[in-house]
C-alpha cells in the first residue's frame, strides 16, 4: 500500500526530470511524439475503450483541432491557447453530428462509418483552397520564443505541455472509470440493451463520451500544429492516423487506465525505427500477451474501484 502511494509521485518526478537524461533534442522529440500518441490513445480510450465503440475516425477531431487553432491564429491573431478551446468545442459538436447517426450502428459498421466521416472531412479540406490552404496545408507563423502563443524554440516547452496533457487525460480516464459515468459506459460496452433495461440512457452516455473524447483529441491536434508548425489534410485527417490511435490503445489494453500509455510507448519505440517486421513482431506479441496486459490493467481497475 505504501509502495503504491509512492509510485505516483515518483513517476511524476521521473517524468518531470526525464529531459535531463537526454543530451540532444532528437531523443526528446521522439519522447514528445510518443507522449502525444499516448495522449491521443487515452482520449480515444474513453469512447473506443471504456465504451467499446470502435472509432476509426478520430483523425477527424484531431484535424479539426489542428485547423481551428491554426486558422484562428493566422486570420484573427488569436492565441492558439484559446484556439485550442475553440477547436475542442467544434470537435465536440462534430462528435454529436457524427455520433447521432453512427451510434445506431454496431461493431464493424460503426468503425467504417466513422472512418468514412473522417475521409469526407479530409476531402472537403483538400478542396477548400482559400481559407484552409487546400492540399498544401497551412504553415503556422513562426514566432520563435512565444509561450503565450503556444510556441517555443526549445523542445522542453513542448515536452512539459504534452506531459500536462497526458496527466490530464489520465485523470479524466481515472475519474471516468471510478464514477457513475464510467460504470454506465462499461455496462454499455458489455451489453447495451441490458444496460437500457436498468435505466441507462445508452445514447446519451455514448454521446457524452464521444464529445469528451473528441474535444480531448482536438486539443492534441492543436498541440501537433504548434509543435510541427505545419499541417496538411493528409497528415491530420488521414486514415493512417485514425487507425494508429485505435491500434495503440488496443495493443496496450483498451478500457484500462494505463493501457493506452503502455501501447504508445511500445509501438513508438519500434515504429520510430520504421521496421515493418518489428511492428509485426510487436503486434504478434501484443496479441498473444493481450490477455496478460489487460488482465493486469483489470486488476488495477478493480483496486481502484
Amino acid at each position, binding site marked *: 500500500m505504501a509502495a503504491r502511494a509512492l509510485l505516483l509521485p515518483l513517476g511524476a518526478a521521473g517524468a518531470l526530470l526525464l529531459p535531463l537524461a537526454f543530451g540532444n533534442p532528437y531523443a526528446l522529440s521522439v519522447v514528445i511524439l510518443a507522449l502525444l500518441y499516448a495522449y491521443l490513445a487515452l482520449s480515444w480510450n474513453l469512447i473506443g475503450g471504456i465504451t*467499446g465503440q*470502435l472509432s476509426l475516425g478520430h483523425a477527424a477531431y484531431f484535424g479539426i483541432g489542428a485547423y481551428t487553432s491554426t486558422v484562428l491564429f493566422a486570420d484573427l491573431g488569436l492565441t492558439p491557447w484559446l484556439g485550442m478551446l475553440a477547436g475542442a468545442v467544434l470537435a465536440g459538436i462534430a462528435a454529436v453530428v457524427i455520433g447521432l*447517426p*453512427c451510434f*445506431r*450502428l454496431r*461493431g*464493424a*459498421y460503426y*468503425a*467504417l*462509418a466513422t*472512418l*468514412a*466521416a473522417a*475521409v*469526407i472531412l479530409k*476531402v*472537403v479540406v*483538400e*478542396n477548400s483552397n482559400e481559407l484552409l490552404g487546400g492540399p498544401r496545408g497551412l504553415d503556422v507563423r513562426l514566432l520563435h520564443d512565444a509561450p503565450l502563443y503556444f510556441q517555443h524554440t526549445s523542445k522542453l516547452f513542448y515536452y512539459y505541455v504534452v506531459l500536462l496533457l497526458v496527466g490530464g487525460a489520465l485523470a479524466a480516464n481515472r475519474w471516468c472509470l471510478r464514477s457513475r459515468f464510467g460504470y454506465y459506459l462499461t455496462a454499455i460496452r458489455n451489453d447495451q440493451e441490458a444496460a437500457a433495461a436498468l435505466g441507462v440512457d445508452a445514447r446519451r452516455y455514448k454521446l457524452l463520451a464521444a464529445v469528451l473524447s473528441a474535444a480531448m483529441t482536438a486539443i492534441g491536434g492543436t498541440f501537433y500544429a504548434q509543435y510541427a508548425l505545419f499541417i496538411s489534410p493528409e497528415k491530420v485527417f488521414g*486514415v493512417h492516423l485514425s*487507425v494508429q490511435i485505435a*491500434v495503440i490503445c*488496443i*495493443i496496450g489494453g*483498451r478500457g484500462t487506465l494505463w493501457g493506452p500509455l503502455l501501447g504508445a510507448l511500445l509501438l513508438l519505440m519500434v515504429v520510430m525505427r520504421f521496421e*515493418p*517486421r518489428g*511492428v*509485426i513482431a510487436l*503486434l*504478434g506479441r*501484443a*496479441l498473444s500477451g*493481450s*490477455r496478460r496486459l489487460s488482465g493486469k490493467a483489470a486488476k488495477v481497475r478493480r483496486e481502484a474501484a
Partner: protein
Amino acid sequence: MTSILQALFDGLASGAIYGIIALGLSLQFGVMKIINFAHGSFLMVAMYLTFWATSLLGLHLLAAIPLVVAVLYLVGWGTQRWLIEPVYRKEATREPISVLIFTTGLWIFLDNLFLVLAGPDYRTPAGDWANGVFVLGDLIFTYPQVAGLVVSVLVTLLLVLFMRYTRLGRAIRATGQDREAASVLGIDSAAVYRTSFAIGLAILGVAGALLLAIFPVDPFIGDLFGVRAFIIVVLGGIGSIGGALAGGLMVGLIESLGAQFLPITYSEALIFAIFLAVLYFRPQGLFGVERA
C-alpha cells in the same frame, strides 16, 4: 452527350471490377464478421502474381487467371488456418478486435515485403492487348473494360449458384447466419471459415488480373482499393453476393458520372457521403436482408 454515355459505360466497367474486388471481402465479412484490413494487400499480391505470370511465363493476362486463383486459394486457406484462426478463436464470443489489429499488421507487412521483393516501381504487363479498343461511333470500349464487365458478372453469378445449390455453399451461408445453429447441424465452422477465406482470396485472383489490365501495380496499390472495397461491401449489404456487384457498379457510376459534373477531387467525398447516407437510412445495405 457522348461524354455522358461514355462515362456511363466506363462507370459500369470499372464498377464491375470494384464489385469483384469487394466480393471476397463480403464473403469473409459476412461469414466471420471480421474486418480484414489486409484485403487490399492481398489484391496487391494477386496483381503481382498476375504480372509475374505474364512476364516470366509469357502467359496472356486472362490466361494467368486460373493459376493466380489457385495460388491465392492456397494462400487464403493457409492464412486462415495458421494465422487468423488462432487469433480469432481467442475472441470468438466478442467483437473480433484482435483480428482487426492482426490484419492491420499483415497489411503493413505484405506491403513492405513486396517493396523488398518487387521494388517500388510501377509495373504493367507487356503487350498491346490492354490498350486495344472497340470503337462504336464516338464511344470507345477497351478490351480490359469489356473483359472486366463480362468476367465480373460471370464470377458473381457462379458464386451465387455455388452458394445456393451446393452443399458447401449452403453450409457457408448457414454458418454466416448463425454459427451455433450451424454447429448443431453438424457443420464444422472452422472448416467453413477456412474455405470462405480461401474463396475470398481466390476471387481476388480474378480481380487482380482484371485490375492489372487497367491499372499498374506497385507495393502500395492495396491502400487505394482496400477502403473502397469495404464501402462497397456495406453499400451492397454485408454477405450479399449480388449486392457486392451492385455496390461496385454503384460506386463506379458515382465516380464516373459525378466527375462529369463536379471536380474529380470531390468524387471520393461523394462516394463516402452516399455511403454514410445508405448506412443511416438502410444499415443493412441496399441489397442486404434485414437482420432480426
